[in-house]
C-alpha cells in the first residue's frame, strides 16, 4: 500500500524535527558554557533535589570546620595561658625550695618575696587574659559585670585574697550536627582547682602564702605554701591536658569533615557538572542532523511533477 504524502505534510514534520534539534543544540550549548549538566530542575528533579541537599551538607560541614577553627582559637589561647601559668608556678616552686634552704636569713627571704610578688601579679594578669575582647577564664561572664569588671580581683591589694567573679558556665560550639565542644575552661577550675578558693589547690592562695611567709620569715608557712604549689601545679597540668585533648579531638574532627566534604563534592559534581564528552558529542551529532535535514528540505521542493511539465 502506498501512503499519500501530501506536499505540506512533508515539510511540517521536517520543521517540527528541526525545532527539536535546535532546542537540543541550545540546551547542550548552555550545558557546555555554564558547566552545569542541568539547565533547569525539570531535566532531572531527583538529581536537583540531591544536588541541593549535598550542597547544603557541604555548606554545613564548611561551617562546622569554621566553628572548629573558632573553638581551636579559644582552646589554644587558653592552653598558652595555662602553660605560661605552669612556668610561673614552677619558678615559684624553685623559689620556695631555695627559701627553705638552711642558709637563708630573714633578709634573703624577704628579697625573694619581691620576685614572688611580681609572679603573683603576672599570674593574676594571666588569669585575666582577654582574647578578642573577652575574658577567656570567666565562664560565660566574659565581659565582666559592672561591679566586678575583671574575673579575678585582689580583694584588698596586695594582701588578697584573690576572688573569682566569673561563673562556671561552659561556652559550647556545635562542631557536628550532634557533637558540641566546650571552648572554654572556667577560671575557678583552672586557678582554684578541685578544692575551690582558699583550698590547697588555689594557686593564688599558695603564692600569696609564699610571699607572706617570705616577708615574715615564717618557714612553716613557706613549707605549706610549697606543698600547695605542687597541688595547684597538678591541677594546672590537668587543665592543660584537658585543653590539649579537646584540641586533638578537634583536629581529628577537622580531618574527618574535610575528607567528608571532598567525598560530598565529588558526589555533587557527578550530578551537577556537565559531562563534556557527552555534551560535545551530542552537539556535533545534532549539528550533523540539522545540516542534513536542511539539505534534504532544500531538495524535496525540486522533486515535483510540475518541473517536468512543458
Amino acid at each position, binding site marked *: 500500500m502506498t501512503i499519500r504524502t*501530501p506536499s505540506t505534510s512533508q515539510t511540517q514534520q521536517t520543521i517540527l524535527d528541526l525545532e527539536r534539534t535546535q532546542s537540543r543544540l541550545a540546551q547542550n550549548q548552555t550545558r557546555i558554557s555554564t558547566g552545569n549538566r542541568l539547565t533547569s530542575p*525539570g531535566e532531572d528533579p*531527583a538529581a536537583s533535589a540531591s544536588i*541541593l541537599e549535598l550542597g*547544603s551538607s557541604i555548606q554545613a560541614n564548611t561551617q562546622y570546620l569554621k566553628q572548629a577553627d573558632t573553638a581551636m582559637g579559644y582552646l589554644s589561647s587558653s592552653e598558652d595561658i595555662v602553660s605560661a601559668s605552669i612556668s610561673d608556678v614552677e619558678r615559684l616552686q624553685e623559689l620556695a625550695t631555695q627559701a627553705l634552704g638552711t642558709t637563708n636569713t630573714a633578709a634573703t627571704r624577704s628579697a625573694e618575696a619581691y620576685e614572688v610578688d611580681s609572679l603573683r601579679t603576672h599570674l593574676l594578669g594571666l588569669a585575666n587574659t582577654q582574647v578578642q575582647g573577652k575574658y577567656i577564664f570567666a565562664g560565660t561572664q566574659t565581659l565582666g559585670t559592672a561591679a566586678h569588671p575583671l574575673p579575678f580581683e585582689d580583694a584588698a591589694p596586695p594582701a588578697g585574697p584573690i576572688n573569682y567573679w566569673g561563673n562556671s558556665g561552659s561556652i559550647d560550639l556545635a562542631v557536628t550536627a550532634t557533637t558540641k565542644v566546650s571552648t572554654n575552661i572556667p577560671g575557678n577550675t583552672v586557678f582554684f582547682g578541685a578544692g575551690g578558693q582558699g583550698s590547697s589547690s588555689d594557686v593564688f592562695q599558695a603564692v600569696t602564702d609564699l610571699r607572706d611567709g617570705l616577708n615574715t620569715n615564717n618557714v612553716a608557712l613557706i613549707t605549706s605554701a610549697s606543698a600547695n604549689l605542687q597541688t595547684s601545679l597538678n591541677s594546672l597540668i590537668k587543665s592543660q591536658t584537658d585543653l590539649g585533648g579537646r584540641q586533638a579531638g578537634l583536629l581529628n574532627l577537622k580531618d574527618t569533615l574535610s575528607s567528608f566534604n571532598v567525598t560530598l563534592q565529588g558526589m555533587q559534581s557527578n550530578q551537577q557538572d556537565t559531562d563534556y564528552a557527552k555534551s560535545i558529542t551530542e552537539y556535533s551529532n545534532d549539528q550533523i542532523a540539522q545540516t542534513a535535514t536542511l539539505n534534504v528540505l532544500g531538495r524535496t521542493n525540486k522533486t515535483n511533477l510540475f518541473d517536468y511539465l512543458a
Partner: protein
Amino acid sequence: MPGLTSGLNIALSGLQAQQAALNVVGQNIANVNTPGYTRQRADLTSNQSQVEGQVYYGTGVSLTDIQGIRDKYLDLQIYRESAKLAGANERDSGVAGISTTVGDTSSTGVAAQIQAFFQGFQDLAGQPENDALRTNVIGKAQTMITGLQSRYSLLDDQRNSADQAVGSLVTEVNTITSQIAQLNQQVMTEVSPGSNNDARDQRKALTDKLAGLVGINVVEGSKGEYQITLDTGAAVLVSGNSSYQLQTSPGGAALDNHLRVNAVMGSTTVDVTTGIKDGQLGGKLDLRDNILVGFQRQLDQLAAGVARQVNQLHRTGYAADGVTTGNDFFQSGVANGATGLPTSVTATTFYKGMVNALTVNAAIVANPSLIAAAGVAGAKGDNSQAAAIAGVETSTSTVDTNGDGIPDSGPFDTVVGSLVSDIGTQSQTYSTQGTTQQNLVSALQTQRDSISGVDLNEEAANMMNLQRGYQASARFLSVINQLTDQLVNQFGK
C-alpha cells in the same frame, strides 16, 4: 440510433465535465497551503443511456458531485488531542518560567539563604559578645526574607499574567464559537450531505483554533452540525446553530481576586472555572489556581517553619544586656501569637501570607544587641540560645506540611529539596506530556493530511489527464463538425 447532434452533445458534455473537473484541480492547487483545507474530488458520472430497441446509447458525461475527502472521526480526535497539547504546553512554559528561579539549587537559592541565616546564628554562638556578628545575623535574615519574598512575588506575577490572559482568551473563544455556530447553520442546510465543502473546511480550521484555546469535546450530529462542549462536560459551547458565551466575573477572595469563568446558557449561568481542563485557557487556569499556588503554599509553610522555630527559642533567650527577654526575632507590627507566628497566619490556611508577613522585628533591627544569644540571665558570654537557634537548621520536624499545626517535616534543606523536586517533577511531567502530545497530534495530522491534504504531483497528473480528455473531446467535436459539414454542405454536390 442517435444522430450527429447527439454526438455534438456528447462532445459538449465531455468538454464541460473536463473543464469543471479542471476547475476542481485548480481549486486544490490554489489551496495547497490553506490551513484546514480538504482536497476535493470531482465525481464524473456517465449520463443516462438512450435506449433504442435492444441498444443502450451513451449520452455523455456530467459532473455530479464535488466531494471533500475527509475522515470526520480523525478530525474529532485531533480536536481533542490538540486541546491537550495546548494545555500541556501552557503548563510546561508556566512552570519552566519559574523553575530556575524558585528551584534554584545554587548558593543564591532559598535553601542556601536559609542555611546562611542559621549559620549567622552559629557564627554568633562562636562570639556572642561581638556586635558585628549580631548585625550579620540581621543581614542574613533580611537576605533570606528578600529571597523568599522575591520568589513568592515571581509566582504572584505569573499567576496575575495567567489571569490577564484568561480575559482575552474568553473573548477569543466567544468569537470563534459564534462563527462555528453560523457555519453549522450552513452545513445543516446544505443541498446534499457533504456538499458544502468550504463551510466544513472553515469550520474545521476554526475548531482546530478553538481546541488550542479551550479544552473541548466535539460530536458531529446527524445533519453534520458540530455539538461542542467543554472537555469536562461542564457546559455547552455550540449546539446546532446557536453558541453559548463564556464570560468572566470577579472571583473574590476564594480565587485570590482573580477572574471567575462562567458559561451563560440562556438564563442560567454556570461557574466553569474548574470545568476547563485543557487548551490554553485550561492550562492558564490550572497554573493560576493550582500549580503555582501549590509552590506558594510550600514557600509559606517553609517561612512559617523558620519563623515559628526561631521565635519560640528566641523569646526564651536573653539579649546582650543579660536581662531583656521575651522578644521575637521575626515580628511584623503587632505581637505574634503563642506559636511564634503572626495571628493572621493560621495552619488551616496552610500559613497563607506567611512569606509576605516575614519581617525581622523592627526593635532588633534598630538595636541588634536585643538578639537573644544567651540562654541564661546575666551571662553575656553565654551562647546557648544562639547555638540552639542555629541547631534548628538541622533538626527534624521544623515545618508543618499538612496544615495540622504540628511540624512534621525533615530539616529545612529537605523541605526546600522537596519543593525543588516538586517543581522539577511537574516541569518534567508537563514537558514530557507536551512532547508526547505533540507527537500524537503530528501523527494524527499526518494521517489527516494523507487523506485530506493536497498532493501537487497527484494534481499535476489529474490535470494532464483532464487536459487530454478536454483535447480529445474537442477533437471529437471537430470530427462531428466535419461530418455535419460533409452532410450539410458537401452532400450531393
